């Protein structure tokens, strides 16, 4: 106990990066656990969630894409992208001093946790972000094109934007509030997904007879794993086991519950039935939207954020898919992109300590008014969204020139499982 108090006083007295004691075992244990939870979100959570939503002839292709992205991004993170995101550099990208995790030993610390734990925790975020984009071009993208695009995208979009926000870059310095990745993860992936849908084009059958989800049971299983895994995603982003991580988990849970019920209620009213896909999609919307806000807002704010997430993302999905007829096949932009945008803005609002029962825990470093905070949040949304959109467009065009983005019509009709992998998901 006395030793613990000494740690605390050290933490208060010294700047964060200069802390040089041994790793805090409680913090370390929680981040190691969170790391496993976040990897679990991709494998198998997101893979199953997406896998159930496509046709039975494409289920393996989606599982394979999530798996291959996990392996590929992990090695790229080791090779240099961790360094681009988190090494010392300028405001826009880190240098290459930490390429191949240079200088990382068992004694290296980031804050109060081993740097190995920090680097691995962040790796799992780098993995799930491009895996989210897969939903936009499902059922028609060549596997080779998917690999090339995902690798380039993590290098050119994800790693630098991470540096901007969390690695000591310009947005973080400005006081942008993004606790667990509303801009870094959800806006970048969501906007890239919208660009993907526009550049790759719709599935051949869209919108008239597109295949409905082939296995909703699988989708609900994956959705449940996402909810559980998100505790690590948001709770772990406190980078310690403390009041901040506990509050982040609590508000995350409240927002997920509110988002799922909001979506269910709207669907019930508009279409006559409360659907299973509706309630789980509302959950994802609630989770994505609370992500940037979760360390800064209180339970009352989380309730409103979740409800607003359900309503806005529900209408965004209808707008994109049904009215604008853009085949973002698994609705990545309206759920993650829109959720990330409104969540980042609402983080600025509900961080205010003057909202009564809806109060949060205060603005970013050096920010004094709600208006100023909202300007910073809007800057973060615009900068990450525009950058991700423009660069993703370029990367899709480059990939198209290299190998072509789409499979041909016959392959699309036969399904990606057989034509890309020579396997079938089900032999019944």
């Amino acid at each position: 106990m006395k030793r613990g108090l000494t740690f605390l006083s050290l933490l208060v007295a010294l700047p964060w990066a200069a802390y040089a004691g041994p790793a805090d075992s409680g913090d370390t244990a929680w981040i190691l656990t969170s790391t496993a939870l976040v990897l679990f979100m991709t494998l198998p959570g997101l893979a199953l969630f997406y896998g159930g939503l496509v046709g039975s002839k494409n289920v393996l292709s989606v599982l394979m894409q999530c798996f291959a992205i996990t392996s590929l991004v992990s090695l790229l993170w080791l090779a240099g992208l961790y360094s681009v995101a988190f090494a010392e550099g300028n405001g826009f990208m880190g240098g290459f001093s930490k390429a191949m995790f240079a200088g990382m030993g068992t004694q290296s610390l980031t804050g109060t946790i081993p740097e190995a734990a920090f680097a691995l925790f962040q790796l799992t975020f780098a993995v799930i972000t491009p895996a989210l984009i897969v939903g936009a071009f499902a059922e028609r993208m060549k596997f080779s094109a998917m690999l090339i695009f995902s690798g380039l995208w993590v290098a050119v979009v994800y790693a630098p934007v991470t540096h901007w926000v969390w690695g000591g870059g310009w947005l973080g310095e400005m006081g942008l509030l993004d606790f667990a990745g509303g801009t870094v993860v959800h806006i970048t992936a969501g906007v890239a997904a919208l660009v993907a849908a526009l550049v790759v084009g719709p599935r051949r059958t869209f919108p008239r007879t597109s295949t409905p989800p082939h296995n909703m049971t699988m989708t609900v299983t994956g959705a449940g794993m996402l909810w559980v895994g998100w505790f690590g995603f948001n709770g772990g982003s406190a980078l310690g086991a403390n009041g901040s991580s506990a509050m982040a988990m609590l508000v995350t849970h409240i927002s997920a519950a509110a988002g799922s019920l909001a979506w269910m209620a709207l669907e019930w009213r508009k279409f006559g039935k409360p659907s299973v896909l509706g309630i789980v999609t509302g959950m994802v919307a609630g989770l994505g939207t609370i992500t940037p806000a979760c360390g800064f807002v209180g339970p009352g704010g989380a309730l409103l954020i979740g409800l607003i997430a359900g309503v806005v993302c529900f209408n965004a999905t209808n707008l994109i898919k049904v009215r604008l007829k853009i085949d973002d096949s698994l609705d990545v932009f309206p759920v993650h992109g829109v959720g990330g945008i409104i969540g980042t803005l609402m983080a600025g609002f509900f961080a205010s300590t003057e909202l009564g029962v809806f109060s949060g825990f205060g603005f970013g470093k050096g920010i004094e008014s709600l208006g100023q905070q909202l300007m910073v949040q809007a800057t973060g949304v615009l900068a990450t969204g525009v950058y991700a959109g423009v660069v993703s467009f370029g990367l899709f065009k480059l990939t198209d020139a290299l190998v072509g983005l789409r499979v041909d019509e016959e392959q699309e009709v036969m399904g990606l499982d057989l034509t890309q992998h020579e396997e079938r998901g089900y032999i019944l």
Partner: protein
Amino acid sequence: MKKIEAIIKPFVLDPVKDALKEIEIYGMTVTEVKGFGQQKGHTELYRGAEYQIDFVPKTRIEIVVPDAKVEAAIEAICQAAGSGKIGDGKIFVSPVETAIRIRTGERGESAL
């Protein structure tokens, strides 16, 4: 001897089977099939997007009966499978030249 082929809604299979049992028709072949008639398909909604399902799941039963039982069998099936709504299904009757019980080699109606 006639073959009666009935395409019915899957959930009326048990009542149809029981009704046929009551008039002492004990054998049948059942297949799960998909198709459409006047009912056409139906639509399903996923996240607000409509999906047109053209082929509706149905159950096909096949029985072979002596000429004398044909009308009774048709009536039993219509009674058990009919709801008066579109999509109840159809019955097709066709002549069968002969039937053979493989175990004994019996032929004709005694093989049924």
